[in-house]
């Protein structure tokens, strides 16, 4: 199976990503159980790696836009450029639209099962 650049990188990206809900020593050495919800506000809508605007309803968009407005008007933060209410663009190769290139594969060619995790 041929993989495009982005797929190859997505594959290595995935290799860095771990499951949540793990047991792991805390700073005091004690074990604690973590889930994404214990320490986070959840993943993006539809579990995408980025917040896709077109699938949001008006209320969801307004939440982002309000935060963007707060930052754009905050004199304490100087960003390289003003945040755009229309968002920023992510673009992958058109070849990656092909279904056969849209999965991560194991070295033996089998399709990896979808799993929960995070990036590092």
């Amino acid at each position, binding site marked *: 199976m041929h993989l495009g650049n982005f797929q190859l990188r997505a594959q290595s990206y995935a290799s860095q990503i771990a499951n949540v809900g793990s047991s792991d020593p805390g700073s005091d050495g004690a074990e604690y159980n973590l889930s994404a919800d214990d*320490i986070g506000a959840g993943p993006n809508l539809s579990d995408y790696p980025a917040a896709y605007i077109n699938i949001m309803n008006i209320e969801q968009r307004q*939440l982002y836009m309000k935060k963007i407005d707060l930052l754009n008007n905050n004199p304490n933060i100087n960003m390289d450029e003003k945040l755009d209410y229309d968002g920023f663009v992510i673009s992958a190769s058109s070849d990656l639209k092909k279904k056969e290139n849209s999965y991560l594969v194991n070295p033996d060619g089998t399709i990896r099962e979808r799993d929960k995790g995070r990036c590092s």
Partner: protein
Amino acid sequence: MGRLGKGIKDGVREIPKEFLELADPSSFYPSLALLCMLVELTEGSGLKIAGGFGFWRGQNLSDASSGMTVKGDGVSDHAFGRGFDIDQIGEGQSLIKFDISIPDDYYQGLDMLLAKIATLPKFLQPDSIVFSSVMITYFNTQDDDTIMKNYPGLGPHIDFGFDDTSIHNGHIHLSFGWTRAGHPDKLSASSYTYQNYNTSDTTFPDMNTGTSGIYKPENYSKYMYLDKYQYQSTLTLTRSTCR
């Protein structure tokens, strides 16, 4: 690797094919958790910071030279709008520039940043904080746990990155991972269900139990703010003016 990853083998996260199919090109917002963190770091008498999101890293993911992490082994959080690079920081009128050729200043700025992040609720603390490996001599360690003891309040999920290249000689990288990027409904809707704190408890619950909520009741109205609603410490949903 962040601490969520310790003890995990074969952890895999698939890039959803639906995401790839629509990404040619498509528009996205920056991570909501990242936006909220930046608001809280800087609002009012907060820090003054200067920096950028690095959105360009996601504008051509088919280009082999873009989008990668420093190590070159993955796609940067910047590409997905989940990262921010701070190159100047300050508390008063003057700003400290992160310039490793002046390591005392670099450390002073980093210390200021970590101390501030430690005051935020855990869900607004990033997954990754990357800085120059020169700072190892200032911390006298590169062990995350040891560094965290200097900043009570930092979540144990945070992964410190000590960059021994020159890439982070002029800035500090902050980013959120995929599963903590922030769901708009969880930060806004009445379906918010994963809190379970005791309203009589005004301290951060013990993270080690993994069973308690992480939010200070007094911060509820601040962090759970909606366009039309806000949560009260009684967990009743009431109308409020827009912020």
